[in-house]
């Protein structure tokens, strides 16, 4: 295609969008609303995923070292824990540190544990362990329980399993819902764009009579679909960006303990997903229906 033709086709497409006025507005609106719904749900899904991941990250195994364990056993235990292939983080908490923590937790009533320092400390040395994959926690806990110098292992069994089950369900539901929404969006957008072509099928016929080649007829429609899809995608991206920024600002002052996906990451995702979706569907929708009407 010559550059001159390219400009001609784009010019024709823009003219057609402007002169078809309401039809263009309507198709942009449908594309924008559909993508806004899809985009909003994606934002929700990202954040739910992030929060559940956060919760899962906090799941850990606490391993209490046997008080009777020999120095050799203690060393071996540490080596085995650090060398465990599924282990993400190994953190030793001495009994002194544990007592300090307890004092801090008790706050004003820390006097309750006063006098237990040093030899009188009733607490034990322990390890705080995090597995690479949080769901592996029960298996890993089962394995390390048998290591030398271990008194007992606690990973919150009975609480952790339902939590994982719940986060799994949330994740799957999000994916299924999003896939459903995406399919709906594809159909809605493609059909809307096709409708804009359908209404003007007579123009395709006229162009054929005039002696235009199929591509000469097709290009303006293709560019029109592209432009409609592009504008229809940019609008929800802007809305989501400003809406999400406001929501994050509100959340930071009101529910600061919940961490949310940053607006920059969100906008990046939206641009990566919604923009191509709008543009590709716009182009496909119009090319497919033009092709149909080109067959006389």
């Amino acid at each position, binding site marked *: 295609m010559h550059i001159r033709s390219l400009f001609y086709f784009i010019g024709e497409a823009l003219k057609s969008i402007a002169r078809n006025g309401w039809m263009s507005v309507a198709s942009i609106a449908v594309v924008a609303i559909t993508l806004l719904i899809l985009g909003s749900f994606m934002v929700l899904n990202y954040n739910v995923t992030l929060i559940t991941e956060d919760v899962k990250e906090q799941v850990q195994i606490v391993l209490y070292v046997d008080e009777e364990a020999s120095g050799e056993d203690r060393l071996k235990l540490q080596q085995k824990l650090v060398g465990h292939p599924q282990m993400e983080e190994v953190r030793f908490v001495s009994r002194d540190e544990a007592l300090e923590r307890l004092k801090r937790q008790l706050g004003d009533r820390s006097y309750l544990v006063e006098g237990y320092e040093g030899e009188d400390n009733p607490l034990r040395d322990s390890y705080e362990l995090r597995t690479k994959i949080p769901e592996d926690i029960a298996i890993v806990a089962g394995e390390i329980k048998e290591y030398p110098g271990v008194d007992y292992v606690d990973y919150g069994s009975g609480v952790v399993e339902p939590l994982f089950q719940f986060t799994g369900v949330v994740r799957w539901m999000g994916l299924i819902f999003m896939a459903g929404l995406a399919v709906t969006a594809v159909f809605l957008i493609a059909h809307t764009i096709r409708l804009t072509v359908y209404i003007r099928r007579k123009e395709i016929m006229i162009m054929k*009579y005039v*002696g*235009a080649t199929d591509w000469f007829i097709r290009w303006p429609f293709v560019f029109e679909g592209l432009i409609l899809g592009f504008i229809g995608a940019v609008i929800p991206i802007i809305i989501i960006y400003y809406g999400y920024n406001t929501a994050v600002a509100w959340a930071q002052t009101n529910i600061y303990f919940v961490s949310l996906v940053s607006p920059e990451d969100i906008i990046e995702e939206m641009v990566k997903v919604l923009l191509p979706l709008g543009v590709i569907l716009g182009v496909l929708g119009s090319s497919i229906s033009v092709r149909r009407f080109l067959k*006389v």
Partner: protein
Amino acid sequence: MAKLLIEARNIKKRYQMGEVIVYALRGVDFTLYEKELVVVLGPSGSGKSTLLNIIGGMDRASEGEFYFGDFHLHEASERQLTYYRRNEVGFIFQFYNLMPNLTAYENIDLSAQIAENPLDIDGLLEQVGLSERRDHFPSQLSGGEQQRVAIARGLAKNPRMLLCDEPTGSLDLASGIQVLKLLRDFCDDYQKTVVIITHNTEISKMADRVVYLKDGLVDKVEINDSPLSAEQVSW
């Protein structure tokens, strides 16, 4: 003797309608000379429009041979047919078929854009008497004015022939006469071949040659030695 422009032999066109085969043309022989105005007369269903579409390269005959000079239309590829439509044929329809979203000027420009040897658009607009309405959209023009734009569009490509399918079919008498006069003028001034398809027998009085079509066959051909001018025709 005028030069032969088109020669079609034994043109047949059949359509498959479910189990039944319907013949629109049953073996038409048709010739067209340069610079003549031909009227094809016939009742509806006689195959007029089918013939026009085949002559114009919009449709293909199911059988028969069709020559445009050395060019064999019955063997032409889609691309060649498009090229033929673009450079040799101007179409004019009963319902004008203008692009609703383009102005009078842009409608004519549309066909000039793709032609190899287009005529001046403003000159054409002046000739059809619509210079003032250059930037009006079809919806802002009367039927007669729209048809005049369509004629200018057909001519803008500077084709060898203008094919008109009931060009006055939806116009009042005065507008119809105006359109016919333009067609006659273009035939004479620009040396174009003009084919008018109609069921209005009055129009045939201004033709150089009249082809009568009946049931998909040529019934008879009459040569008119003293054609009337458009103003003398009335219905």
